[in-house]
């Protein structure tokens, strides 16, 4: 019997993708379909004085033109936010289509529905909007100043919330007694996710059945249905089916409930015809929720011998114009709680101000809060080590939480499940030959060459999360996961999971789990995801939760199937239940060669002629798994860079990633996740960054200006692992989807600064473009 768990099985889903047979939302064509084009505000802040739609309506092929007022008059409610950060958090309404004011460039203003995309787009040019342009504010640090233009009248100083965590008094006191304080001012720049598939949605309403199907490129179909039905449209959930078919990447940006999902659903109900909307890339730049955008002042205090005493962090987080679905939680709970990192120090205080600006809403982007926390902490670790005259690896080692201290409770409310931080650091240092590179660096400096070595030791809290904890920290949703396993009479299996794959390979990983669990081939396991009509319930995929939570739910369902199968096997094999064991993929009478396979048992379950008394026929089980804690993957990444002193260009010479994500189901897929995460994290360090002008125009609004890493930008990554199983979920797994992003940004920034630190440079703001690095080197 093959052991599928732990093997690099080729992905089951790939055949359709490599032959062009994937089905993404925009690939779906329905009979009688219409197309929506959305007129968007070109101004960051303006009052809408009037909207003239008559010319657009008269354009050939136009079916309807709707404005925000049409939706409002029809009882469409604003979009909800799903995370309440403080009791006093200010949540201004977020209209699906703007009614009297627009608050960012891209805010929907009107919707043109037509027989073709071309007609809709042509007619959209004929919609005339009279704006009274108002002053805008784009920088969160300026937005909280007195007299700044207000994004929402109900939010004075543009403040949605001030959130804090940790013991301020103790932290202040510890810092006041510290022998040395390292201070950094950090801008974690705004990023634009750019999943390769632009968002798309189709509303398909059947008047006779009063049923609505929404196809949407979402990571999160069940939650979208809940939010849209219960909060926005006020329609019965059981009459709505949300399907997220193949989704071309998400990285967080497709978690959220977007206006366009409501627009196509509502329009379809109005018109009785399917309505499709697909973003053009320039629309994606404006309207996909952005990521990061923090301004932070961080101070770390040490005693004489380099033991960390306390950390104080003040962050101003730009939330954009409205609160997106998880917006508040990212720069607070998913950020502040991670500031202990891998280190044992007693006092942390973090304060975050969540600030509205006239920019695209900001929400989770791969890593979501945790890359920002890692960046703050790991930049401080390197800077502090340098200031103390210690080797940065040594300084970290000195302050690590020791391997025997788990479970470990941090000063910022988390309890780490398991870890071996020294282990991953050691392994990474060996792999890259740290000592040799330090020698190389010294030699290079003598020759006027600039070589830098960057270390980043990270911790991640993921596999989000126990529902009870989620509730306590203001999440307006449970964070369990649902699964259902249906064993067909032939012994083949369909697995229904509430997790959603948009590239992560669930159809394979989950099949491996079920195959091992039930003694069948993964070829006989079909994984269904992304359809609310088929799956009991789900919380979607984000926060590296699919395997840890969704996989565990599947495992629980497997156990239930095994229990029932055991009863059937005992009956058929005329043995006591206690004597039946599951071995080598079969139900065996202990110590004999008498055994039944799943197929034999399943047939019996569906043709129960000879069957245990009182047992229900059929073989199908549901499970809802609510974890008892987050999982805490960790690791060490080390990079070596060389900077061309004449141009400031950074070249990555080596990149070693040692991650610990607990047990690994499919190493090939885990490595692939790490590679992709690295590309995005390195992208932030070196190239990516959203730039607005002071009037709120997005200047990096296309792939011509926003630099997404390309094949020849990136090095060959050396990826390895240590394995410290998660003690609290049945598979012993931790999340693996975000580690690369979390570690790599700080890793590269540390390497770049290390390369030029002997020139007296303490910090260079990201992205570390040639120009910025060159200016730093040449003091300009």
């Amino acid at each position, binding site marked *: 019997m093959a052991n599928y768990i732990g093997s690099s099985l080729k992905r089951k889903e790939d055949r359709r993708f490599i032959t062009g047979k994937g089905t993404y939302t925009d690939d779906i064509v329905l009979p009688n379909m219409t197309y929506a084009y959305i007129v968007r505000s070109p101004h960051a802040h303006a009052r809408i004085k009037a909207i003239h739609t008559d010319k657009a309506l008269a354009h050939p092929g136009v079916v309807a033109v709707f404005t925000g007022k049409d939706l409002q008059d029809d009882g469409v409610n604003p979009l909800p936010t799903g995370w309440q950060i403080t009791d006093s958090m200010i949540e201004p309404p977020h209209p699906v289509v703007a009614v009297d004011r627009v608050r960012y460039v891209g805010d929907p203003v009107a919707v043109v529905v037509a027989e073709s*995309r*071309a007609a809709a*787009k*042509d007619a959209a*040019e004929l919609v005339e909007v009279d704006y009274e342009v108002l002053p805008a504010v784009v920088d969160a640090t300026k937005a909280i100043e007195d007299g700044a233009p207000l994004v929402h009248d109900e939010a004075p100083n543009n403040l949605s919330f001030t959130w804090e965590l940790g013991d301020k008094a103790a932290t202040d006191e510890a810092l006041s007694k510290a022998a040395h304080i390292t201070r950094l001012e950090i801008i974690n720049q705004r990023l634009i996710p750019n999943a390769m598939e632009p968002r798309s949605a189709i509303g398909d309403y059947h008047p006779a059945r009063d049923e609505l199907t929404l196809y949407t490129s979402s990571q999160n179909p069940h939650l979208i249905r809940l939010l849209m039905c219960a909060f926005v449209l006020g329609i019965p959930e059981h009459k709505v089916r949300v399907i997220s078919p193949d989704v071309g990447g998400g990285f967080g940006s497709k978690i959220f409930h977007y206006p366009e999902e409501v627009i196509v659903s509502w329009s379809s109900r109005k018109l009785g015809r399917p309505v499709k909307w697909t973003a*053009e890339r*320039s629309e994606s730049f404006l309207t996909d929720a952005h990521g990061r955008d923090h301004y932070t002042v961080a101070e770390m205090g040490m005693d004489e011998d380099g033991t960390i005493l306390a950390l104080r962090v003040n962050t101003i987080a730009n939330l954009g114009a409205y609160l997106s679905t998880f917006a508040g939680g990212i720069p607070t709970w998913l950020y502040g709680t991670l500031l202990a990192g891998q280190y044992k120090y007693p006092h942390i205080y973090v304060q975050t101000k969540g600030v509205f600006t006239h920019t695209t809403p900001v929400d989770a982007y791969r890593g979501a809060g945790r890359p920002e926390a890692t960046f703050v902490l790991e930049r401080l670790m390197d800077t502090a080590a340098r200031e103390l005259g210690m080797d940065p690896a040594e300084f970290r080692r000195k302050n690590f939480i020791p391997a025997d201290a788990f479970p470990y409770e941090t000063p910022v409310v988390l309890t780490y499940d398991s870890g071996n931080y020294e282990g991953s650091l050691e392994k990474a240092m060996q792999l890259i030959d740290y000592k040799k590179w330090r020698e190389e660096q010294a030699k290079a400096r003598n020759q006027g060459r600039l070589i830098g070595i960057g270390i980043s030791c990270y911790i991640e809290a993921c596999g989000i999360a126990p529902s009870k904890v989620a509730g306590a920290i203001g999440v307006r949703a449970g964070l369990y996961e649902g699964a259902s396993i249906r064993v067909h009479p032939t012994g083949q299996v369909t697995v229904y999971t509430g997790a959603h794959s948009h590239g992560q390979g669930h159809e394979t990983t989950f099949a491996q789990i079920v195959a091992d669990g039930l003694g069948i081939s993964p070829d006989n396991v079909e994984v269904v995801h992304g359809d609310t009509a088929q799956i009991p319930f789900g919380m979607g995929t984000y926060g590296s939760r699919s395997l840890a939570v969704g996989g565990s739910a599947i495992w629980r369902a497997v156990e239930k199937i095994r229990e029932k199968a055991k009863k059937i096997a005992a009956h058929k094999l005329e043995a006591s239940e206690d004597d039946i064991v599951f071995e080598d993929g079969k139900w065996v009478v202990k110590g004999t060669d008498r055994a039944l396979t799943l197929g034999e048992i399943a047939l019996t379950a569906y043709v129960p002629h000879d069957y245990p008394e009182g047992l229900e026929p059929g073989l199908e089980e549901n499970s809802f798994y609510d974890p008892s804690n987050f999982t805490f993957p960790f690791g060490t990444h080390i990079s070596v860079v060389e900077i061309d002193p004449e*141009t400031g*260009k950074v070249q990555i010479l080596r990149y070693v990633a040692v991650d610990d994500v607990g047990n690994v189901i499919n190493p090939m897929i885990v490595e692939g996740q790490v590679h992709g995460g690295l590309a995005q994290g390195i992208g932030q360090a*070196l*190239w990516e960054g959203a730039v607005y002008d002071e009037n709120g125009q997005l200047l990096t609004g296309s*792939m*011509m*200006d*926003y*630099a*997404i890493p390309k094949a020849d*930008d990136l090095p060959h990554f050396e990826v390895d692992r240590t394995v410290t199983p998660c003690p609290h979920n049945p598979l012993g797994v931790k999340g693996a989807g975000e580690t690369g992003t979390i570690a790599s940004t700080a890793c590269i920034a540390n390497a770049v600064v290390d390369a030029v630190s002997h020139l007296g440079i303490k910090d260079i703001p990201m992205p570390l*473009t*040639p120009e910025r690095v060159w200016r730093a080197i040449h003091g300009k």
Partner: protein
Amino acid sequence: MIPNNFEYIRANSVQEALQLLSQKGDGARLLAGGHSLIPAMKLRLNAPETVIDISGIQELASIRRDGDRLHIGALVTHRTVETSDEVKSSCPVLSEAAALIGDPLVRNRGTIGGSLAHCDPAADYPALTLCLGAEIEATGPSGSRTIAADDFFVGMFETALQSGEMITRVTFPVLGKGTGAAYEKFSHPASRFAVVGVAAMVTLDGGGNCNSVRVAITGAGPSVFRATKVEQALTG
């Protein structure tokens, strides 16, 4: 992603293209490789009334060496320049520079004539053309004329081409013994346009002195220009 509507006409010869140009006037644009025009049309930043597709005009798609001159037809793609043995042996820097334009897919369709006529301030070919002292053949209703590269690049997106004219050929010198040329480019990480690109050609005399130097810079001004002070400093 959907341009405004327009009239599409395919021209099968230079003659036909010129007739259409004069007939359709200012509202007409020539379509060669399409990699500047079509993106602008997709974003509706440009909406020509008529598009005259010249991409199929065979007579403009060849490379020919004639003594110490290398003639490249206006519709020769970047990929052809990059891979042509004739170009590699006669004027290797051109091949090397062509290999740096955009990305391979852009190079598969983009043309030298299109690039020069478009005259993007950060494009690569203008720097090469200017540095190597190439000549641009412009053909209009009254026949062909030759424009020296030094006179061709007028400003941002502006050339010496007159309304009704089109580029039909670009003629480069064959680099002889003692002459070397190079192109170095610092690419924008997103667009791969030149943040700055420098083309230089140096001819040495028998004694190893610089007989002549030409240096052209792209990306650093409204249009490509010659770095005359650098040239003077290096000559002699």
